[in-house]
Each structure stands twice: as structure tokens, then as C-alpha cells.
């Protein structure tokens, strides 16, 4: 082992951490039964690496080094807690396995199971959405507090407090796989958390940029991880498909000047074909397994990428199905858009107007924006301008506000349809 440039070593530690964090926390959580404690122990191992590797050089097997360090600290912790006699017996058995090399194999066999427990724990429905997101990014993504703060445009102290609160909330949650009757709901909670992360990156709800691709990347990686851990869950593949397909459009979503480019105006040659291929493959898998709500949304996304133009009549039909399965106001609004795009703006507007009283859509800028676009296509320009002005006033995203304000200010023809690419 040779000492090397400290900044290179530091970046190596961080890279190894991103690769190994989830498994390390999962293994230690299994040993201690306590995810919050496991996270602290894992962090201690990270600190140890940051201290020793610049001095001693990067070890030949960095992953196992971190795991062994974390495991030793866990054993120390357990020994100190005399009430955990049962845990001691467990650890004694495992350290005996370690003595003849059996521990590492046992860890290997169980790692999928341990990671699943960790994911289900981090995304437990009893936790607030904010906490689930913070824990998932921290424990599975290996993100630092600073990275989480940047991702959500909050200060570091706020991010640290959020993580601490989330870990405290874990006190009552068992590190276990959900029993089969609960599996559906628990999987749904995990998927919702991952999609929340994706959406915050894809269509940032606030702040200066239209999108934060790094968050999308984290969510994509989590989605792929889930595909490996829960290969027979259709909606796991459905969500992965949806995210890969939406992410494929990111390169075309923002102009070189940094302005948002809506879907029908996007240069399709910029769409990422590798992600499209992965998304379509995941969609096939999801449909084979029985599909669901994310799968239908992915099928809708696929309609945009197949062929040279989006197949709006098919998209409208898929939204009808989606609305049956998930009659949420946002789905109903998207259905209105699709119906308008498929050639019937009057019916689209009627559907949008049905949503006028919806509490869930109050303050949601897309509702007046959609109405504005449909009104414009019907030639009712003054009303359209008023609707876009309303949308501009409601949005907290700067880039989006600029689009709406432009359409409020200067509408000459019907033109550009709304679906935010």
C-alpha cells in the first residue's frame, strides 16, 4: 500500500462510499437491529477511511475494508449494551463464521435481503415523505449532508436537522421485511419516495433551474437497484421504465440558453437513446408482470418516443385507463391535455373546467396553464392571456414563470401546446 495524493485519495474514499454505503448500513443494521445506530457506525467507518487512507494508501480491497471496520465498531457497540445478550450470541456466531471466512460468504448471500430491509425501513409509510427522501438518499445513495442540502435547495443545518429528525422517527420501526399482506403498500411507499426524488429533479418545484439532473440520476440508480432486488414486482419495472423514458428527454428539455423547452418543441435527436432502450425494455417487463399505474404512465411516455411524432390519440386512450385506476385531479388534468392534443380542444377545455373546484389543484399553476393553452387553440386569446398570467403568478419556479409570463404577454396564435416535456 503506497501513500498517494491526498485529494485523489479523498475522492476515492467518497467514490467507494457511494458504491458501498447501502450495503454497509444494511449489514450493520442486521447486526444491531437499529438503522439509526447503523448509520452512525457506518459514518464512523467512513471517517476512519478518510483519516487512514491518505496516510497508509488506499487498501487493495476498499469495500471489504470499510465493511470490516464498520462490523468491528458494531460489535464494540453491542458488547457495551449489556441488555443485548441475545445480540451477543448472534454476533458470537457471526464472528466465529468470520474466523473461518464464512462471514463474508454469509454476508454475500444475505446482502439482497439486508438491502431490501433497509429500503423498506427507510421508506416506511409511518415516516413523513421528507424524512423518507432524506433517509433514502443518505442510507442508500450515500449522499453527504451537503449533497442533500444542495439537492433540495436548503441550508446544510436544515438538511442535517431533517436527517436527524428522520433517524429519530425510525426508533419505532423494525428492521424487517414487511409481511406478505403488507408488501403491496410497502412497495408503493418505496416507489413513491423514489419518484418524489426523480420529480424534484425533473421538474423542480422551486428555485432557479428548470431541472436538476443529478437528482434524476440518483433516482434512476435507485430504480435500477430496486429492479434487481424486487424483480417480480411489476410496478418496480413500471417506475424504472417511466423514469428512464422521462430522463431520456432531459438533454432536450433545456435550451443552451437555459430556458425550458416544452415537449412538442424539443429536438428529438437529443433524446438519449440508451435510456429509451432501457425504458422500453423495463416497460415490456412491467407489462409482462401485470402492470399498474406507473406502467401506464410509462406506456404514455413511450408513446412520445416511438415514431417521429407523439401518438396523441393513443395517449388520450391511456389516460382514460389511468384515470379509471387512479382518478386523481392531476391525472384528470393530463387527460384533458391529451384530449386537446388529440384534436378536440373544446372537450379538453370542458374536462379542465370540471376541475375548477378541486381543492387538490388549488394553487397548482398547471391548471390555469392548461386552460390557457386550450383557450388559445380555440382562438379565445384574451381569456388565454388571463389564464397564463394566473399561472405565472402561481408558480414558484423561475424558469416556468418566465414561460407563462411570455405567453400571457404575447399571444398571437394558438401555437405551442403545454405538456411540459
Amino acid at each position: 500500500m503506497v501513500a498517494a495524493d491526498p485529494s485523489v485519495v479523498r475522492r476515492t474514499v467518497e467514490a467507494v462510499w457511494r458504491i458501498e454505503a447501502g450495503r454497509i448500513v444494511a449489514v450493520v443494521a442486521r447486526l444491531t437491529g437499529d438503522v439509526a445506530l447503523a448509520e452512525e457506525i457506518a459514518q464512523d467507518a467512513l471517517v476512519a477511511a478518510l483519516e487512514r487512507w491518505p496516510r497508509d494508501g488506499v487498501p487493495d480491497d476498499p469495500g471489504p475494508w470499510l465493511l470490516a471496520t464498520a462490523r468491528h465498531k458494531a460489535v464494540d457497540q453491542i458488547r457495551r449494551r449489556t441488555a443485548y445478550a441475545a445480540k451477543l450470541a448472534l454476533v458470537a456466531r457471526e464472528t466465529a463464521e468470520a474466523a473461518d471466512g464464512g462471514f463474508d460468504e454469509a454476508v454475500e448471500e444475505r446482502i439482497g435481503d439486508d438491502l431490501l430491509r433497509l429500503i423498506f425501513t427507510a421508506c416506511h409509510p409511518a415516516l413523513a415523505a421528507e424524512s423518507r427522501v432524506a433517509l433514502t438518499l443518505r442510507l442508500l445513495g450515500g449522499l453527504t449532508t451537503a449533497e442533500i442540502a444542495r439537492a433540495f435547495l436548503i441550508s446544510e443545518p436544515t438538511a442535517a436537522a431533517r436527517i436527524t429528525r428522520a433517524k429519530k422517527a425510525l426508533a419505532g420501526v423494525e428492521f424487517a421485511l414487511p409481511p406478505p399482506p403488507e408488501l403491496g403498500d410497502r412497495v408503493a411507499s418505496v416507489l413513491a419516495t423514489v419518484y418524489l426524488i426523480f420529480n424534484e429533479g425533473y421538474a423542480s418545484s422551486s428555485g432557479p433551474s428548470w431541472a436538476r439532473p443529478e437528482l434524476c440520476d440518483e433516482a434512476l440508480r435507485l430504480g435500477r437497484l430496486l429492479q434487481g432486488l424486487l424483480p417480480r414486482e411489476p410496478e418496480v419495472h413500471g417506475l424504472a421504465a417511466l423514469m428512464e423514458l422521462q430522463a431520456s428527454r432531459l438533454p432536450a428539455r433545456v435550451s443552451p440558453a437555459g430556458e425550458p423547452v416544452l415537449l412538442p418543441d424539443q429536438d428529438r435527436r437529443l433524446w438519449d437513446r440508451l435510456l429509451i432502450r432501457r425504458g422500453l425494455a423495463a416497460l415490456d417487463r412491467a407489462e409482462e408482470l401485470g402492470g399498474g399505474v406507473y406502467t401506464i404512465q410509462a406506456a404514455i411516455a413511450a408513446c412520445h418516443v416511438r415514431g417521429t411524432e407523439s401518438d396523441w390519440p393513443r395517449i388520450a386512450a391511456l389516460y382514460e385507463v389511468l384515470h379509471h385506476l387512479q382518478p386523481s385531479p392531476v391525472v384528470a388534468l393530463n387527460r384533458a391535455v391529451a384530449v386537446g392534443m388529440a384534436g378536440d380542444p373544446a372537450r379538453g377545455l370542458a374536462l379542465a373546467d370540471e376541475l375548477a373546484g378541486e381543492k387538490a389543484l388549488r394553487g397548482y399553476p398547471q391548471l390555469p396553464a392548461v386552460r390557457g393553452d386550450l383557450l388559445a387553440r380555440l382562438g379565445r386569446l384574451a381569456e388565454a392571456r388571463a389564464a397564463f398570467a394566473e399561472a405565472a403568478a402561481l408558480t414558484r419556479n423561475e424558469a416556468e414563470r418566465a414561460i407563462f409570463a411570455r405567453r400571457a404577454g404575447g399571444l398571437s396564435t394558438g401555437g405551442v401546446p403545454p405538456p411540459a416535456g
Partner: protein
Amino acid sequence: MRYIVLLTAARPDSPPPPELMEAIMKLGGEAGASGTLVDQGGLEPSAAGARVTVAGSELTVTDGPFAEAKEVVSYAIYDVKDKAEVVEWATRFMKVHRDLWPGWEGESQIFKVMGPGGA
């Protein structure tokens, strides 16, 4: 960020040891499961391919094989947060070659794929 990794190595006299192939499959599985390895493939020897070259305003098409000391053996595409991460994965692949095929020599070349805004 996306990176492409090209593995080059001298054409071997003997087939790779089965333990190495097993270890490569396992490592590839881990990289795939982690969500960062998004595409990969083995490349046939140059005998199966060709070259199209422009030099001195002349365009030439040449069929393989090519008498080079080294062949490009495989490619892998990674979707990672930074260069250090793909270097770590490539290092792991190279280590299994070093450890399980004594005498083997080769090189992984890591290229960053251009993306919008340099991301």
C-alpha cells in the same frame, strides 16, 4: 455523468481461467445491480471487423484482422456521479484480472461522454 470504458489487452495464447470469467460476471452483476453499469459488451477479435480511414484526402476501407499488439476486448458504459466512481469500478475489474490471471497485462481507457452542459 456518463463514461465509456474500453479494455485493451494483448491477444492471449490461452483462454481465460474460468475463475476469472466467474469473477468478471459477478462484478458485472454488482455494477449492474448498483444501477451504474448501463451497457456493456464483449468485442470480437479484429478479424471480425474493419476500418474506414481518411488520410491525405484518401478514404480506405480495410478488413480485419489487424496486426496490432493489443485488441480492444470489451466496452462498458457507466452512469455515475463523478470520475472517481468509474475509476473505482474499472480498478475492481482490473484487479480481478491481475489476481486471477497471472501474467495478464492490459489497460482500461476511461472516456467521458459529452453531455448537455458538460454534465
